[in-house]
């Protein structure tokens, strides 16, 4: 019987020859990532009683959730982590000036096909775009990984997503994954691994693939992967010299479910309050007035997203009733966006540029919402209170829909150039 990507990668990481769904393994992750919650991880680590880290070079710490520190409490937390990093010789530390963890990991060569990556962040599924088995864990579990190098994992069953045809103009990977979440629901992939296939996935940029794997978390996925191809290998080789072994599924692998999506029939989608699986075509709610538009995040803050926004906004202004916030996913992305002139376009259109980081996505700072306000956002969650007031509403859509709506002052279908 053939094996899925999850089965083959976990077997390798557990030094086990043959595994099946339901098997319990001791897995040794190749990369263990934390952000500001490294503060909590290190606090727990110190209680375990081991003198040193299992392997400090597997640990990556990236500040992104509250950068620069928005409060004294956060500043104290940052300081405690910097001290821990220094005392324990952790080399892979990225302070407030690098970017969002899920963008920084690939940029600095930590996403290598065939490996296992764990992170104290639910959207760690993102790195499956590089063929990595990549999943989120809590802080205490991470402290145990720092101490012992391993954690238990149950081998998951897998869902295979197969796209047919190609996207219509104005429809993007964000619309595809929102549609899938609406179809499979918030818990449709709970405990499961997801694999993406199809001509459109093969044609897709790495950045667009990352949108699929990032948001697969919102249907509960334990991991979500795109099989590595020449494009993946070229990118990974451009950022790391470390050798890696590409793992793909066997052609006769066994899946719990196969979902086929006809892209020729897919229209722009929006996730309505207060659940990411409350998905409708944009056309159904077009016309709803908005107060804020947010372009950024680990989901859609990459160069191609900013390019879409800048092209729509060139020579135009954001609606007077709307505040638009733009957050590049990393300083590398920011730098490129400056060089290409996108940032000037955003400023001229009246947008506010915020430094790379998570910004208001998780309700910490830099653009929170008041009660009664409505925001259209390229981010990944619209839970009650997620971005400020519990009386505010967040709608999730593609960068194209977000920017078209910012110009119109209301939720609007993206323009399609002929």
């Amino acid at each position, binding site marked *: 019987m053939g094996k899925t990507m999850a089965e083959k990668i976990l077997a390798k990481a557990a030094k086990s020859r043959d595994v099946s769904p339901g098997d*319990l393994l001791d897995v040794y992750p190749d990369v263990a990532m934390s952000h*500001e*919650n490294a*503060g*909590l991880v290190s*606090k*727990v680590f110190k*209680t*375990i*009683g*081991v003198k040193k880290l299992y392997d400090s070079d597997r640990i990556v710490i990236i500040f992104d*959730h*509250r950068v620069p520190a928005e*409060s004294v*409490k*956060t500043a104290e*937390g940052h300081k405690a982590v910097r001290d821990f990093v220094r005392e324990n010789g952790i080399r892979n530390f990225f302070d407030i000036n690098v970017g969002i963890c899920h963008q920084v990991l690939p940029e600095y060569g930590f996403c290598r096909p065939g490996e296992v990556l764990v*992170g*104290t*962040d*639910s959207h*760690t599924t993102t790195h499956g775009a590089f063929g990595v088995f990549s999943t*989120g*864990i*809590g*802080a*205490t*579990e991470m*402290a*145990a990984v720092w*101490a*012992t190098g391993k954690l*238990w994992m149950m081998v998951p069953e897998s869902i295979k997503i197969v796209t047919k045809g190609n996207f219509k103009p104005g429809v993007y990977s964000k619309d595809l994954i929102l549609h899938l979440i609406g179809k499979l629901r*918030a*818990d449709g992939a*709970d*405990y499961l691994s997801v694999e993406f296939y199809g001509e459109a996935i093969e044609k897709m940029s790495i950045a667009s693939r990352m949108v699929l794997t990032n948001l697969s978390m919102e249907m*509960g996925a*334990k991991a979500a992967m795109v099989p590595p191809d020449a494009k993946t290998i070229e990118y990974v080789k451009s950022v790391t010299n470390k050798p890696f072994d590409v793992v793909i599924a066997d052609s006769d692998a066994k899946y719990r479910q196969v979902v086929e999506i006809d892209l020729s029939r897919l229209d722009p989608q929006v996730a309505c309050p207060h*659940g990411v699986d409350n998905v409708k075509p944009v056309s159904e709610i077009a016309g709803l007035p908005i107060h804020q538009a947010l372009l950024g995040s680990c989901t859609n803050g990459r160069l191609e997203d900013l390019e879409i926004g800048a092209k729509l906004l060139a020579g135009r202004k954001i609606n007077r009733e709307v505040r638009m916030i733009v957050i590049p996913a990393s300083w590398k992305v920011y730098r490129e966006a400056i060089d290409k002139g996108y940032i000037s376009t955003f400023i001229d259109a009246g947008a506010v540029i915020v430094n790379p980081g998570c910004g208001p996505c*998780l*309700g*910490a700072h830099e653009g929170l919402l008041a009660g009664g306000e409505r925001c259209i956002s390229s981010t990944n*969650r619209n*839970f*009650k*209170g*997620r971005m400020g007031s*519990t009386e505010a509403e967040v709608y999730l859509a593609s960068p194209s829909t977000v920017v078209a709506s910012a110009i119109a002052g209301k939720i609007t279908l993206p323009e399609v150039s002929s």
Partner: protein
Amino acid sequence: MSTFRGKTFVYGDDINTDVIFPGRYLNVFDPAEMAKHAMEDLDKDFVKNAAVGDIVVAGKYFGCGSSREQAATCLKAVGISVVIAKSFARIFYRNAINQGLAIMICPGIDEIVQMGDQLEVDPTSGVIKNLTRGGERTAKPLPPFIMGILNDGGLIPHLQKSMKSA
């Protein structure tokens, strides 16, 4: 683990970790301070009304969303003895076990419990009895190795024990 007795707080499906422990408090690492904000965006009276030993009952997919461990820690810090749900999101499931917060999966729990009912729960046998209005359900047993972590009081005590015996 001994038997739990307490009054219930009953919530619906898909209760996410943002409403259990809002993102604005994620820089809080002290359990006593976490306890002040438990369920803040779901039920503002929860912290005021919850007593040590009380029980949270929910529908499917409890604890979905963020990996924030505080969502489990804050409930334990409030004194919640066990969370019983029709199903759990996987990261919350692991976080609860790792924190030594008992959880039970019981698909029929909503049929026998209403807000405020007194329950008696035997975590070993899985039997859940409603002392207020009668009715009984049995939760699905947790795998033995998971019960082992819970019985040791969470992942860190479990790890320390295994390191001592090694």
